[in-house]
């Protein structure tokens, strides 16, 4: 699975970092989402799905 983000739409709510801290980070200057990796390991997929579903601005897309 591959993760893509649309950082322009991000509202810096931080839900992704709470859900999957190994995959998502926030930029220092504005708290906007930053991807640590776009190919999460198998054992993090549940967390990434949770991050995508909780993102209030629907910034995170998952592609198989």
């Amino acid at each position, binding site marked *: 699975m591959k993760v893509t983000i649309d950082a322009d739409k991000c509202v810096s709510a*931080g839900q992704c970092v709470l859900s999957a801290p190994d995959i998502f980070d926030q930029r220092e200057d504005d708290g906007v989402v930053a991807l640590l990796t776009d190919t999460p390991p198998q054992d993090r997929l549940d967390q990434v799905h949770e991050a995508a579903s909780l993102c209030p601005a629907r910034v995170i897309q998952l592609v198989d």
Partner: protein
Amino acid sequence: MAKGHIVTSSSADTTDTLTADLPEYPMARAAGCPFDPPPTLRKVQSEHQIARVRIWDGSSPWLVTGYDNVRNLLSDPRLSTDGTKPSFPHQSALTKARRGEPTPFGTDDPEHARQRRTVSAAFAIKHVEAMRPAIQRIVDDQIDTMLAGPNPVDFVDAFALPVPSLVICNMLGVPYSDHHFFESRTKLLLTRAGTPERSAQAARELITHLEQLVDDKLANPADDVVSSLAKRVAAGEITRDQAARLSVTLLIGGHETTANMISLGTLALLQHPEQLDRVRENSENPAIIGSAVEELLRWLSVPHSGRRRVALEDIEIGGVEIRAGESVILANDIANRDPAVFADPDHLDIDRNPRKQIAFGFGVHQCLGQSLARVELQVVYSTLYRRVPTLRLATDLDQIPFKHDGILYGVYAMPITW
């Protein structure tokens, strides 16, 4: 077309004649059931999901109550939060009187996004986690102060309000000595009681006060949020007025909401001793404390008077057509009790970890300070009951003055003893 008293068609002719029969919103909670949703609100949810209601000014907005529909509409850009639009469903005559005062809540993207990003860095998870030790100190000191003072005492005054006020003052760079000033004005802004003149005056006083603080920070910058906003004013990125309004929003959003969660959460746990024991016994377990915070956010849903919107385009949802220009109220409180999403929704279960709860809203306006609120509540819930194990109410539950007239739910006072 009407089903019982609730109109399910958007036909203007029909709704005008039936407006008087519509359920009034907000609805009253049942006597003696301060934690249960209003019975009429639950009835609307179980029967219709989306239905017309009547509000204070006689208008009849759509009320949306089902979790999925509320969540989808909260993130739908076809709905506006702009309170200057003619049919906007204001909370009261008081909030309507302030509609000309632009706030980030009442501004749509892209301007909302631009302003939000001027302060969003401070609320990133890393920053907020870095504040955890300072928040722990504030909570411990406030418990020391409370225990050294009169017993019984008003919990709101002695603990629930000072803790988040101290935290947000610290973060923004607002002197804590101002707290009586901003807490009293906030009270005037967040009640539906009172007069529009007093409410507008309170708003103006807060803005003026924060404008002066922006000026002070421009001359003497420090490592705080108002200083960083002052720098942006100097750089021409935002106006002095915008910086002051953003600061006021953060100040109000930063203390009153969390204060209500501290007092109401404590009251809820005191009424559920087995849940309180579990919180106390797991004070050192971040997973259980984190879950307890999410569940109390869901179960209490302090923002209990709906998110207010106006449709910019026609929207079809839940078998209803919301027409452009019509007003909409998204009831995230009852959505958090939707049995289709949360099993046995009225049962308080601190092990449930309902991360899907929408007490902070959803969509681009979702609470910017939610990570800070979570850390504050985690520190409070994991510290207070452990350190004060004999904490209990010093009055009967039916003597507690609840904020039934508040835009946010909570208690005005709560006598406790230990």
